[in-house]
Structures are given as structure tokens and as C-alpha cells.
């Protein structure tokens, strides 16, 4: 791996000569721009980046990143990425995936990557629809949603990707939105700084098959009423006039309270993403399903004290080599009881 000082990288260094083939107006363009803006500043040589994807619109991502890239098969990007990272822990491996790729066909690999804490960054582009196959409902589509495959409404209840990741005890879990470029870049930088598995749900619009997928959060007027910005060490406050907050109830649950009339910010929950246990982040992760609650954006969990899987597995190899000495092939072939024929 390269260690000498290099001229600083720029966004241009991460752009390829391939024509980007997402639909005009797709949220993926914004995500691509944010990633290309963040990568040059990470202090990592370009040749050490590997972008791995599965199948779906989002999974075209590697073709547009001038790094090492692997467009694999549907759902399997986390497993391919694990193999890369275990073999070469120095590599900076990012997975680009979608709600179908990561949560339907590849759900198993997603949760196992996270529980092992493989040092891979997973960007889940969540547009709540199957785009590449032209409009069927996805595992994050709303209950009763009418789509091509559910003309009478979807009978499925959706996954909450953040809850799922926290449930798998992912050590870094965050949520951002395609068009909130500054927020998205900050979130990506925080993910990049995390050593263990990092899972970022990026709410993304599909202007062809699911336009307005996140309109409650992205419309200028609605935004501040419906979004709760998570900031480390700050109380959970939201609302156009920053006059609402999240308070702990005596039973451990949370409630929305109106500030004023004796209720002050000091009564509110103070955000702590670094808590070693995942239960607090889990409580935050699905509040938006309840009436009157906002949707949190930002870093839910960033607890980086768990060793990375690839370090554990490679250290084990090093330890055993140190203990037993590097393997001697002749000795191995002759192991156990042997006899001579003259």
C-alpha cells in the first residue's frame, strides 16, 4: 500500500469516464456527488478505495466512482465486501445498496455484516420502491401502498432500516437525505471516521416510480416540523419554532412535549450516540411511526469500542503464527503417525 505523501485528491479524481445512466432527477445523482466530494478528504490513497454493490439502480454506483469497484449480484455485496476486507483489512471498502438489495434478497448478509462488525461502510439508498424492475413495492414501502405488484395496496408491513441495523447491534447507524447535501456529507464523513461497520440509510427520491417518497421531510415548509436533527450532547428539540422536544417518561418510554409552561430543554433527552448499549438508539429509531413524533436524522449510534472482525480474524492468524511458528509444509504433510516403506 502507498505510504508516501501524495498531491491532494480532488472530486475529479473520483469521477469516471462512464456516462451516468440514472433517470434525470434521480436522487442517486446527489448521493454520488456527496460521496465524490467526501472521498478526496479522507486522507486515503485512491487505489485503496473499493466500492462494492449488488443489483438495482443504486448498485450502478461503482461504475461512476474512479476507484476499484465490484458490481456483484443481487443482495450479495456485503458478503463480497467481507471477503475483500478480511483478506485486505487496509482497504477502504464501501457498499452501495438499495432497500430491495439490502433488506429483501440480501437481508441475511446485511445483518451478519453488521453483527460481525466488519469495517465496511454500507450506504443504503432507500427510495421505498423497486426502480430497476419498474415499480414494485419494496421491504420499506408503506403498508397499503399501491404499486404495480400491489394494485389493491401492499399487505406487507415495512422494515425500518435503522431499527433493523441497530437490532443487529451495528456500531454505527445514521440516516440522511439525498438532497440535504451538507448533512449528507457530514454523515458520510462520520461514517468514514468509524472503524467498525457503518450503516447509513439515505432517504432518496425516485422521481419516476415513487416521486415524493420522503416529501414530508424534504418539503421546505414541512421539513422543520417533521425532522428531528440528532446532535451529540444536545437535547432533542424540533419544530419550526424549536418549541417541541422528546422527553423520557417514567416507564422508560419517550413522549413529545411542548416547550414552555414549565417544560424546558433541561427536561429533554440529551442525545448520546456513543452509549455502549444499543437500546437508546433503538428507541429513537422508530419514533416516526407514532402520531406526532418527528423523523430523526443524523447519527443514532456511533460506538467504536468493538474490535473489527477483520482485525480479530487476522490477529488470530498472527497470534498462532507467533505461538506455533510459521507453518512448515513438509512437517504438515508428515503430521500424525507415519511409516516408511523401503
Amino acid at each position, binding site marked *: *500500500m*502507498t505510504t508516501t505523501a501524495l498531491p491532494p485528491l480532488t472530486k475529479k479524481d473520483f469521477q*469516471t469516464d*462512464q456516462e451516468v445512466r440514472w433517470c434525470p432527477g434521480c436522487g442517486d445523482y446527489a448521493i454520488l456527488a456527496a460521496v465524490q466530494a467526501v472521498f478526496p478528504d479522507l486522507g486515503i*490513497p*485512491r*487505489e*485503496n*478505495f*473499493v466500492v*462494492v*454493490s449488488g*443489483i438495482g439502480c443504486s448498485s450502478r454506483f*461503482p*461504475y461512476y*466512482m*474512479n476507484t*476499484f*469497484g*465490484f*458490481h*456483484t*449480484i*443481487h443482495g*450479495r455485496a456485503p*458478503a*463480497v465486501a*467481507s*471477503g*475483500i*476486507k*478480511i*483478506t*485486505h483489512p487496509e*482497504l477502504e471498502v464501501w457498499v452501495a445498496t438499495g432497500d430491495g438489495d439490502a433488506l429483501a434478497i440480501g437481508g*441475511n*448478509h446485511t445483518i*451478519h455484516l453488521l453483527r460481525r462488525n466488519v469495517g465496511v461502510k454500507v450506504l443504503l439508498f432507500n427510495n421505498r420502491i423497486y426502480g430497476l424492475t419498474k415499480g414494485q413495492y419494496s421491504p420499506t414501502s408503506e403498508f397499503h401502498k399501491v404499486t404495480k405488484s400491489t394494485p389493491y395496496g401492499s399487505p406487507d408491513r415495512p422494515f425500518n432500516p435503522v431499527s433493523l441495523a441497530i437490532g443487529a447491534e451495528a456500531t454505527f447507524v445514521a440516516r440522511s437525505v439525498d438532497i440535504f447535501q451538507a448533512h449528507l456529507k457530514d454523515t458520510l464523513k462520520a461514517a468514514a471516521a468509524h472503524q467498525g461497520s457503518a450503516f447509513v440509510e439515505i432517504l432518496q427520491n425516485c422521481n419516476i416510480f415513487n416521486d415524493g417518497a420522503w416529501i414530508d421531510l424534504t418539503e421546505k415548509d414541512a421539513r422543520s416540523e417533521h425532522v428531528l436533527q440528532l446532535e451529540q450532547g444536545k437535547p432533542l428539540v424540533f419544530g419550526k419554532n424549536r418549541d417541541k422536544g422528546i422527553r423520557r417518561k417514567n416507564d422508560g418510554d419517550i413522549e413529545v412535549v411542548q416547550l414552555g409552561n414549565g417544560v424546558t430543554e433541561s427536561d429533554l433527552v440529551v442525545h448520546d450516540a456513543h452509549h455502549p448499549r444499543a437500546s437508546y438508539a433503538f428507541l429513537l429509531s422508530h419514533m416516526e411511526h407514532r402520531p406526532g413524533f418527528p423523523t430523526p436524522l443524523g447519527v443514532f449510534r456511533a460506538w467504536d469500542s468493538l474490535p473489527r472482525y477483520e482485525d480479530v*480474524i*487476522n490477529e488470530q*492468524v498472527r497470534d*498462532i*503464527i507467533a*505461538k*506455533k511458528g*510459521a*507453518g512448515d*509444509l*513438509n512437517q*504438515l*504433510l*508428515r*503430521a*500424525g*503417525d*507415519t*511409516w*516408511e*516403506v*523401503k
Partner: protein
Amino acid sequence: MSTLMDVPAGKTKREVIEQAVIRFAGDSGDGMQITGSQFTNTVALYGNDIATFPDYPAEIRAPAGTEPGVSGFQLNFSSAEVHTPGDAIDVLIAMNPAALKVNIADLKANGILIVNSDSFKEGDLRKARLTTNPLEDHSLDKFRVFPVELQRLTRSALQHLGLDAKAMDRCKNFFALGMCYWLYNRSTEPTVRWIDDKFKKKPLLAEANKLAMKAGYSYCEATEAFQISYEIPPAQLSPGSYRNLSGNQALALGFVTAARKSGLRLFLGSYPITPASDILHELSQYKNFDVLTFQAEDEIAAITSSIGASYAGALALTTTSGPGMALKTEALGLAVMTELPLVICDIQRGGPSTGLPTKTEQADLLQAMFGRNSEAPIPVLAPSTPGDCFWIAVEACRIALKYMVPVIILSDGYLANGAEPWRIPKEQEIPEIPVKFATDPEGFMPYKRNPDTLARPWAVPGTKGLEHRIGGLEKQDVSGNINYEPLNHENMVRIRAAKIDAIVQDIPNVLPAGDPEGELLIVSWGSTYGAITQSVKSQRAKGRRIGHLHLRNLNPLPANVGDVLKRYRKILIAELNMGQLRWMLRAKYLVDAAGLNKIQGRPFKQAELDQKIEEMLGL
């Protein structure tokens, strides 16, 4: 402890014989596999040629004493060359009525039957669904029956150790083993060493097992129960150092060797499945050879993590059996498309679906050949014997790395668990496997091919200036860019096929064993090698003009197969399936070949082959 030296000469008759087949049978909890392996190891160390057949149920513990719970271990050991575990058995050790019932049909007339008479009570008979006691109803009159109170005798030998009854009873297999050592004049020393090592941390259990074995040995000596003991002199194997090796162990050693010879890290992505799991167990012990073993969340992650490791520059492999192979299908296509080196071991078992997990079959050949969407050719290799698994593993890695392709190894349950003496090669006897990673950005193109091998460059992440994208979409040759043009697709399909076909120049022609031309050619592949070799030998000894063509390379087939087929009047293809190789050879060479097909989860018996051969010769 007793050793060979202690055997009192003269008290009983000692007869020198050439060969014997012994089978240990009992409940799956009776330790029959350990007993069999120990006896095998001891006779192999002594210098006999051997072939083994462990046969155990899929259930970990089927109800005790019932027929489905019977576990068996058969060993053929000889002073001459041995190719099979043997059709019929000379000595049967039956630990209970169910074991007796299931196995007695294979015991030769006048064969020795040792039974644990303590387990022939009414309840035991009922569990085995027997209405009369075979020890009393004269159904065993044509055998030499030796009822031994294994339980009582073992307990009385161990009573002073203070173990509970259950723990003492667990040692009775070593009592039986001690008897067999006496019967065949073999030293108990290798097993004593094994017990000491195995029970290092439980000295009391080590003592108990050793005492039980000694008691069994002494029982024969003192009671003169058998009145005769046997001596099988060492076999004349070619000179060298030998060890006893099973097929799965041999594959594991082969992969470590190939990693060393290619200078690469070894990566195994695997999901446990019978009968392949032992390769994972073996390799996970060899971490001091820089071996990475990854027990994945499923069969798909097992292969796709290996593809990732290969992309990152490791010698990557994945191990499985038929059902897992089915799950890996799509990923195999990805490996074909991205032209990455990868070795896939399919340790075949009876199918379809879950089928017969612990029984052997050769019915995944067409799956290995064609079981992917679209045109996705993959080289296929098959080992012939447990020891050959080592060489096939090395060869599969060589082909994968030289041609940048996935390679499938088709072993099976019989090879995986069966063992034979293996001549240990010296490290220097095994050729190096040269590997060259792309490093020069000047003119680098991900699909620019080596004109000789058609292999694309292996450009590993972390290499400056070689950033590029690969994937499952069709690509333009040379540049590797996505390309959907009709003529480009046809060109790429043909290149991928031509690359596999060209490997034929790099594999040896096959020589038929036996007659180079004649009445009948038997064609086979995989684990049937031993049985067919034995049968062809005995048929030729009777003056019949027969050849035997055994294929280790199934895709591509060796260049001269077509020529060999023409030199015989009739062709018989013997396989443990419905005729899959026959299907392939008929299609490729337009030959009229007959089949001998057995689909019982069991290997061929020599008698079955002899009968078919004689039928085809009109005898």
C-alpha cells in the same frame, strides 16, 4: 500395556493370511467410527494396504438400539494392493441386535461374529424389531459366533476407578478393539498414544479406555476364545513415507500446499454441510499457514465472500455438497463473468434436495457441468481415491490461477470419509504455481488477455493506477466496460468457452489401464476407481480383453478420449447416478455406450461390476 511381543506363541494357532475385511457396527453413540479409525491407523502403520468405508446415519443420535441408528465402519486390509473396502466381510463386531440385523447379510459363511451378548435382552430385541433372539434361534449357525459380555467385562475391568456405570459402558468399544488387536496380532501401542493425547486433560478417562482395551486383549489371551489368530504381513507399497489419509483431509492439505506453492494467502468461505464440513474443520486448524477460514451465514455468502477474497488477491475456495452447490449457482456465474480464480469443492451426497446426507453418490456431474444460467463453462476435476484428493486440489488451484477461472472439484462422501495409505510427497516434488499480479498502469486494461491462456490480468485493489470496475454485466473485451452490443456478447461468450477448451492442451492424455484395445472398455470417474480397478484385474486374470479408462478431468476432457473409445468393441460406463457421464460422452463422441448405474447411496461392489462385465461379454 500389551504389545505384539506379549502374544504367547503356541497357545493358539496363528495363521498367516493375505487379506481381511472387518466391520465394526453399533449404535451411533457406541464409538464405532473411532474404533474403526483406530484399527485402521494401527494396521496402516504396520504396513498393510487399506481401504475404509465409514457408514453412519444422518441423525446424530437416532433412538438407541434401533436399525436407523446403526453406525458402521468397514476396513479392508491386506498384504497385497487393495482398491476397495471389500464386498463381503470376514469379521463383524456387532454391539447390539440392530447392528447385527443390519449387517449380518454381508458376513461371509464361516465368518467371525463377535457380539455384545449383554445387549441381547428382550428390550434390546424389541428395539431391533426382532421376535426371536438370534443368539438362540440358530439363524447364525453358519457363522463362528463369539458372544462376549462386553458390558459386564468392561465394568469389572474398570470398577476400581470409581467411574459411574455410564462412563464405564462408554469404554466397551475399546474392549472390543483390544479383542481385534489380539485377533490380528497387532500392537495396541498406536492407540495407547492416541488415547493419551485425546484425553490429555482427562487422565481418568484415558486410564479407563486403555484398561478396557487391555482387558479385551487379555480376555482373548486368557480364554483362548478364538483358538486361532491371524497375521497379515505388510504390503509391498512403492518406497517412501506413508500416512493414513481421508479424502477431506487430503483436500485440505492440497489447498495449503497450493497456497504455499503460489505464495498466496488461502481463504476458505464455507457453510457447514455434510459431508464437506471436515475440510472447514481441517483448514481452520492450519492458521499458522496464513489460512483464513470464514464460516459464512449461508452457502451464498460462503462463495461470494470467496469471490471477494479472490478479487482481493487470495487463493480462494469454497466447500459444499449438492444442496449448497445449488445455492451457489448464481455466484458461480459471477465468477465466470468476472474471470476470477476460485476453487469450489462439491463433496457429493445422495440427492435430490436433502436426499441422503451421509451417503455417497455421483449425481452432481451435470450440475457441475451445466448448472448455471446461460453459457457458463467451468473446468471440472474429480479425484479417484482419498489420496488423489491432494493432487486434485493442487491441480485445481493451478488451473484456476493460470487461467483466471473458477474450477469445480467433484469429490463424494465415499472419498471424503474413506481412507488409504498415502505416500507423502516432499515439498520439493510439488511444482511451484507461478502467479503474477498486474502492477503496471501503462496500457492496463482489465480484460486484455494473455494470448496463450486467454487469462485476463489479476489487478488487486490497493495497486496504484489500476483502479477499474468489474461486475456481472456483459463487458467489452479488453476494456471491460459495460457493453450490450450483440456481436460483442457473442464474442465474449465464445472467448469464455474457448478459454476453458484451451485447457485441454495443459492436461495429460489418459491411458486406459488393462488392455489398450479389445472387447470392452469400462469408463469411469471419481470414487468408483477402486472397485472398477479390482474388477478389471480379476476379469483380465480370467483372460478377458478389457480396458479401463478412468477420467480425472471431466471438463475439458483429455484430448485422446475419443481415440481411446474407438479401440474397443463395446463401451460400459459405470457410475453412481443415472448415466450422466454416459450422456456427456454419447453427446460429444457419438458413441454407443452402455451404462451400469447404481443409485443406492453406496459404492459399487466388485460382484456387481463383474456381473455386468460378463453380461456384456456374453458370458
